[in-house]
C-alpha cells in the first residue's frame, strides 16, 4: 500500500506545473553559474599565464611611467615608482626567460617549486601571522603531494567537472538550497488544505501515518532526484568535455581549528587558527563525492523541517514564508551573533555548505570549533527524526476541519 501511495504522490508531484518551473529555474541557475565559471576561468587562465603576467606587468610599468611623466599627483615619491618599475622589469625578464619552457611537460613542477619557495620565505619572515602560516603550510603540503604523485595541480578556479561541482555545492549550500527547497515543497501537506484535496485522500481506507510517510518519501525522491540528478548530470557532461582527471588532484580535508589565546584580537577574543597537521590528505574527486553525499542528507533534513511546518499550517504561503524566513534568519544570525555562534554546530541549516563542512572551513565561518562532518551527520539525522515524528503526531491526531 505504501508503494501505491508513493506512486500516487509522485504522479501528483510531476503533474504539477510548479515542479517543472522550479526545476527549470534551478537548471537555469546552474547554467548561469556554469557560464560565469567558464568566463572567470578563461580570464584567470590568461592572467596567470606567462603571457598574461607579462602583459599585466607591462601595463603596470606604463601606468607608473605616465604618473612620473605627467607628475599628476602632488607629493609623489618618484624614486619609489622607479624602484617598482625596475622590479616589474626584472620579473618580466624572468618570465620571458622561462616562457620558452612553458610547453615542456614538467614546466608546472618548476612553477610550483617557485611557489613553495615563496611560501616558505613568507613563513620564515618575522611578521608572518599564524593564520597565514597555517594556510601556507597546508599549501606546501599539497605541493609536496603533487610533486610526489606527479599529478599536475589544477587551480580551483579552472573550469572542469570536479571544480565546478565542488564550487556549485559550496555556492548553493548557504541559504540558496534551503530556500529553494522551501519554495518547492512548502505546499506538500498544507497545499492540500487550500483547496482541501486532503479530504479526498483521507476518506480512503488508509491510515494517516501512511499518507504522511508516502508524501515524505515522494518529496525526498523528487527533491533529491531533481537536485542531485542535475548536479550529477552537470558533472558527467562537463567531465566528458573537460575530463575527470582533476578529481585525482590532492586536497586537504578535515582541517581542525582551535582558539589561539596567545593572540588576542582587538575585541578581546582569541584568534581561530588551524590545528597543525590536522588536515587529512584526500582528492578533489573524493571531496566532491563526500560533499555530494552530505548534501543529500542536508536536503533530506530540509525536507523534514519544511514538512513539519507544512503539516502544522493550512496555508502553503504561510509555510513557505516561515520556512524561508527561518532558514535565512538562522544562517545570518548564526554567522553574525557571537551568542548563537556558540551553538551554531547544533543547527542543521549551518551544514548546508557541505564542501566547507568536509574541508573544515565551516568552523571558521561560524567561529565555532565544534563543527565536523560527524557532528553534522548526527545533527541532521536527529533533526530529521524529530521533525518527522512531530509532523506525524500533529497530522495523525488533528481534526481535519478543512
Amino acid at each position, binding site marked *: 500500500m505504501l508503494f*501505491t501511495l508513493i506512486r*500516487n504522490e509522485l*504522479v501528483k508531484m510531476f*503533474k504539477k506545473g510548479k515542479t517543472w518551473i522550479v526545476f527549470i529555474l534551478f537548471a537555469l541557475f546552474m547554467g548561469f553559474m556554469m557560464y560565469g565559471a567558464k568566463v572567470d576561468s578563461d580570464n584567470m587562465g590568461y592572467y596567470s599565464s606567462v603571457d598574461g603576467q607579462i602583459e599585466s606587468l607591462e601595463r603596470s610599468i606604463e601606468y607608473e611611467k605616465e604618473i612620473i611623466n605627467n607628475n599628476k599627483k602632488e607629493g609623489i615619491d618618484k624614486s619609489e615608482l622607479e624602484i617598482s618599475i625596475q622590479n616589474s622589469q626584472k620579473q618580466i625578464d624572468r618570465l620571458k626567460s622561462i616562457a620558452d619552457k612553458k610547453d615542456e611537460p614538467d614546466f608546472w613542477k618548476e612553477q610550483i617549486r617557485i611557489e613553495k619557495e615563496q611560501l616558505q620565505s613568507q613563513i620564515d619572515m618575522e611578521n608572518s601571522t599564524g593564520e597565514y602560516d597555517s594556510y601556507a603550510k597546508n599549501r606546501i603540503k599539497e605541493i609536496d603531494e603533487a610533486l610526489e604523485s606527479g599529478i599536475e595541480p589544477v587551480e580551483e578556479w579552472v573550469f572542469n567537472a570536479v571544480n565546478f561541482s565542488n564550487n556549485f555545492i559550496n555556492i548553493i549550500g548557504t541559504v540558496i538550497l534551503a530556500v529553494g527547497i522551501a519554495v518547492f515543497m512548502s505546499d506538500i501537506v498544507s497545499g492540500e488544505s487550500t483547496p482541501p484535496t486532503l479530504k*479526498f*485522500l483521507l476518506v*480512503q*481506507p*488508509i491510515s494517516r501515518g501512511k499518507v504522511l510517510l508516502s508524501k515524505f518519501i515522494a518529496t525526498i525522491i523528487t527533491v533529491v532526484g531533481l537536485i542531485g540528478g542535475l548536479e550529477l548530470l552537470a558533472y558527467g557532461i562537463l567531465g566528458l568535455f573537460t575530463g575527470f582527471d582533476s578529481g585525482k588532484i590532492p586536497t586537504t580535508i578535515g582541517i581542525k581549528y582551535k582558539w589561539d589565546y596567545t593572540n588576542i584580537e582587538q575585541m578581546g577574543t582569541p584568534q581561530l587558527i588551524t590545528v597543525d597537521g590536522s588536515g587529512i590528505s584526500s582528492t578533489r574527486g573524493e571531496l566532491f563525492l563526500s560533499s555530494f553525499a552530505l548534501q543529500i542528507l542536508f536536503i533530506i533534513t530540509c525536507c523534514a523541517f519544511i514538512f513539519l511546518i507544512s503539516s502544522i499550517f493550512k496555508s502553503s504561503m504561510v509555510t513557505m514564508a516561515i520556512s524561508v524566513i527561518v532558514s535565512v534568519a538562522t544562517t545570518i544570525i548564526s554567522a553574525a551573533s557571537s551568542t548563537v555562534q556558540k551553538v551554531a554546530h547544533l543547527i542543521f541549516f549551518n551544514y548546508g555548505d557541505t564542501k566547507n563542512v568536509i574541508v573544515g572551513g565551516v568552523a571558521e565561518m561560524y567561529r565555532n570549533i565544534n563543527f565536523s562532518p560527524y557532528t553534522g551527520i548526527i545533527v541532521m539525522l536527529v533533526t530529521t527524526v524529530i521533525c518527522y515524528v512531530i509532523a506525524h503526531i500533529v497530522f495523525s491526531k488533528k481534526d481535519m476541519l478543512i
Partner: protein
Amino acid sequence: MNILEVKGVKKKLGKREIIKELDLQVKEGEIFGFLGPNGAGKTTTIRMLVGLISYDNGEIKICGNELKKNKEKALKNVGAVVENPELYRYLSGRENLMQIARIRKVSKEEVEDLIELVGLKDRINDKVKKYSLGMKQRLGLAAALIGNPKLLILDEPTNGLDPSGIMDFREVVKKAAKERGMSVFISSHILSEVQNLCDRVAFINNGVIKAIEDIHEHTMKTELESLTLIVHGDINESLKVIKTLDCITAANIIDEEIHLVIKNGQTNLLLKELIDKNIQVEEIYKNRKGLEQRYMELVEGGVR
C-alpha cells in the same frame, strides 16, 4: 442489517459542543436523508463518519467495524464526498479516479464503467480545472463509488448545481444505489432533494437529532398545519384579532400576507372564528405539506 450505526456520539470543538447526542442507524440498501439548517451539525457528523475528525463519546460502526478501533476496515466500505468534491485540479478526471482506484485496488475497467455511469466519458481526459461545478460533482460521485462501497456518504451534494444539474445528479445517485444495492447517507438542507431521494430522514438541529421518520410524500405525520391568509382592509388590525383566537399557535405578516400555524385538524374552527370576528377573507390556503411542514415543526419551531 444495519450498515451504519451511530450510538451516543458527542463532539466538542473548542469549548462548544457541536454534537450533543447522536443516535441513528442506516439499513442495507436504504437512502437515508440527514436534514437540518446551516450550522445544525450535519457536516461535523459527516466528518466524524468518514474519520476526518474524531468524536469524544459514543461509537460509530460501519458494517460492524468500529471506526476508532478499526478505521481502515470501516472506511473500506465507505465512499464519500464531503462538502464540495475537492479534486486535484492539475490532474485529469481519469487520473483523479485512478488515484483512488490504485488505493482501493480497483481495475481500470471498473473505473471506465463508473465514468460511463456518471456521464463523463467525453471529458474524462480533461484537466479538472476545466470542469464545471456539475462535472466536478459527477466526478466526485464517481470517485466515491470506486470499490463499490456498501455505504455512500454525500454531504450537500447538489450545492451550487443548477436545476437540471440537481435532477441529473439525483438520477445518478438513484441509479447507483439501485444497481449496486448500496446504502446512501445524504445530508442536505434542501427539502425537495431529500423528499425525492430518501426512504427515511433524520432531522438535526443544534447538534441533536429531533426525529427520524419514514418519508411518504403528502402523508407525513404532522402536529401542526401552516396556512396563508390574504385579507381585505387593515392587515395589522386583522393580525391583532387573529392572534387572540384559541386555535392559533403562531401568526405573522410576510409580504402583505398573514402566515398562520394552527393545530392539526382545526382548519374548520379557524374559518368559523375568522367569520365570527368579521375578518374580510379574500383568500386562504394550506401552504406547507409533508416533509417541509415537519421540518418547520421540528427544526424551526413552527412558522418562520
